């Protein structure tokens, strides 16, 4: 694989960028792999990349029913942060944030990670108490965080209405300067390119339709386009389709699939150079490098597999944003879309073995797994390679729902993704 550099950009410019090398191979699958990853989203591709790169396991295939990174990876609003409340989750997300900080260099692919900071607003006394608790917990865990008052917020976001006479006045915020946004597609493509170069087979347009299970042990996957492909281990990273894929193995998960939507405005001049989220008015916003305002809010309250989302949510999100930024009232919206998120009762992921030997699941990231893409891939790869769950993944096992050791992140993961 040719390295990307300023020089290669110049060189290819000389013949009008006509002869760039293909970014990844498009192989037909072998009969057998050491490890099959089901789901070619960011998490699946990152898992394959780290398996090859860090653990030297290259006889690996990623099987994707659509195209690479076309699921929630392509549909999310790209907010990256690690200021979660509990030790278990903040360690996991911070592990990921550290990987983000050098990801473009690691992959030789510009993932446009921009640490522009993330504000989580508080509008009530209780919000502010929760923010104090969370920021202090973050600091004890070595994660950057500050508590800002409305004056300090105003300095960061001058166009936001922080006046005391709003219906939901801004009383303060938590501020994580190392948080920010990244280019979602580039993350999937960068991991795909890296994995493909190290020998991983990326199989697109191939749906897993079942598992081959013998004596309580998975021995392969059944697919629509290539029939049975055998494997020593299988890791499923299928986000909103986790329940569907689990049921192919006769399993149930504590997961429900809901549409989550987002929308972008027409591009406007730079006005917002950070990320603003509010659990209380229930909306969040940032501005992309292209200039469009990227807006999102909550999930549909009922289960669904329609990648669009319901109308009342749009109205609700717009109302929330206008409460904070009345001056955006005449900005026109350009596009709207939805993804299917895999929500968990404690708003935390499941990274776990299952009752079926050699079958692993990495799911339940719900509305907030984009930020975890490198970290999730890394700990999942380590767990698959060593047949033992990585230290950071251990608290996220499936049986926490039986012994009650849930990790309640609803506070830090409300509307904030």
């Amino acid at each position, binding site marked *: 694989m040719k390295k990307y550099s300023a020089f290669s950009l110049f060189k290819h410019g000389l013949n009008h960028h006509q002869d760039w090398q293909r970014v990844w191979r498009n192989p037909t699958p072998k009969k057998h792999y050491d490890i099959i990853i089901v789901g070619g989203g960011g998490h699946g591709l990152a898992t394959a990349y780290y398996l090859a790169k860090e653990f030297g396991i290259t006889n690996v295939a990623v099987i994707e029913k659509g195209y690479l990174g076309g699921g929630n990876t392509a549909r999310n609003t790209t907010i990256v942060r690690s200021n979660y409340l509990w030790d278990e989750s903040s360690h996991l997300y911070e592990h990921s944030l550290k990987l983000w900080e050098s990801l473009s260099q690691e992959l030789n692919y510009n993932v446009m990670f921009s640490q522009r900071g993330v504000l989580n607003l508080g509008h009530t006394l209780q919000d502010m108490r929760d923010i104090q608790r969370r920021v202090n917990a973050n600091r004890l865990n070595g994660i950057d965080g500050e508590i800002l008052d409305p004056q300090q917020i105003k300095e960061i976001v001058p166009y936001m209405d922080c006046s005391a006479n709003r219906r939901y006045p801004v009383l303060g915020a938590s501020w994580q300067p190392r948080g920010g946004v990244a280019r979602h597609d580039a993350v999937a493509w960068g991991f795909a390119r890296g994995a493909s170069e190290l020998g991983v087979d990326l199989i697109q347009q191939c749906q897993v339709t079942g598992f081959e299970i013998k004596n*309580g042990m998975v021995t392969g996957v059944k697919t629509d386009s290539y029939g049975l492909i055998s494997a020593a281990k299988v890791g499923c990273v299928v986000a909103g*389709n*986790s*329940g*569907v894929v689990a*049921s192919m193995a*006769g*399993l*149930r*998960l*504590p*997961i*429900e*699939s809901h549409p989550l939507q987002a929308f972008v405005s027409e591009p406007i001049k730079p006005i917002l150079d950070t990320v603003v989220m509010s659990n209380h008015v229930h909306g969040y916003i940032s501005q992309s490098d292209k200039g469009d305002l990227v807006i999102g809010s909550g999930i549909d*309250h*009922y*289960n*669904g*597999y*329609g990648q669009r989302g*319901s*109308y*009342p949510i749009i109205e609700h999100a717009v109302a929330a944003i206008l409460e904070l930024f009345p001056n955006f009232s005449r900005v026109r919206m350009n596009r709207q879309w939805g993804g299917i998120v895999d929500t968990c*009762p404690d708003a935390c992921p499941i990274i776990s073995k*299952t*009752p*079926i030997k050699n079958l692993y699941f990495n799911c339940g990231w719900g509305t907030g797994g984009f930020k975890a893409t490198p970290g999730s891939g890394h700990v999942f790869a380590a767990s698959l390679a060593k047949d033992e769950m990585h230290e950071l993944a251990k608290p996220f096992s*499936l*049986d926490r*729902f*039986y*012994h*009650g050791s849930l990790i309640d992140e609803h506070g830090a993961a409300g509307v904030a993704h």
Partner: protein
Amino acid sequence: MFLIHCPICNEPRSEDEFHCAGEGHIQRPLDPMATSDKEWGDYLFFRSNPRGTYRELWQHTIGCRKYFYIKRNTETYQIYKTYKLDDKSERVALDKEHSNKNKFGDLL
């Protein structure tokens, strides 16, 4: 956007008058003391989450405030029917569907 026929008010009303209360027909373990951690966990957290036919409990929150069931398709968003809590017909259909499948989660 759903137009939901409330079986109690007996008229179609718009989606935002309602609140979804999750999967329907989930039976609470009858004898708490004799219920294992596994059974409690399954009852509280594990759901079928199908892509297709699904039966859900809903509440007509800003209407009659009564609970009822919706049988609908989670992929096409078609509502097959809405019915009252004491309607046993779907319970029977559900038991039949389940007895045809291998019992979920038994391995854990």
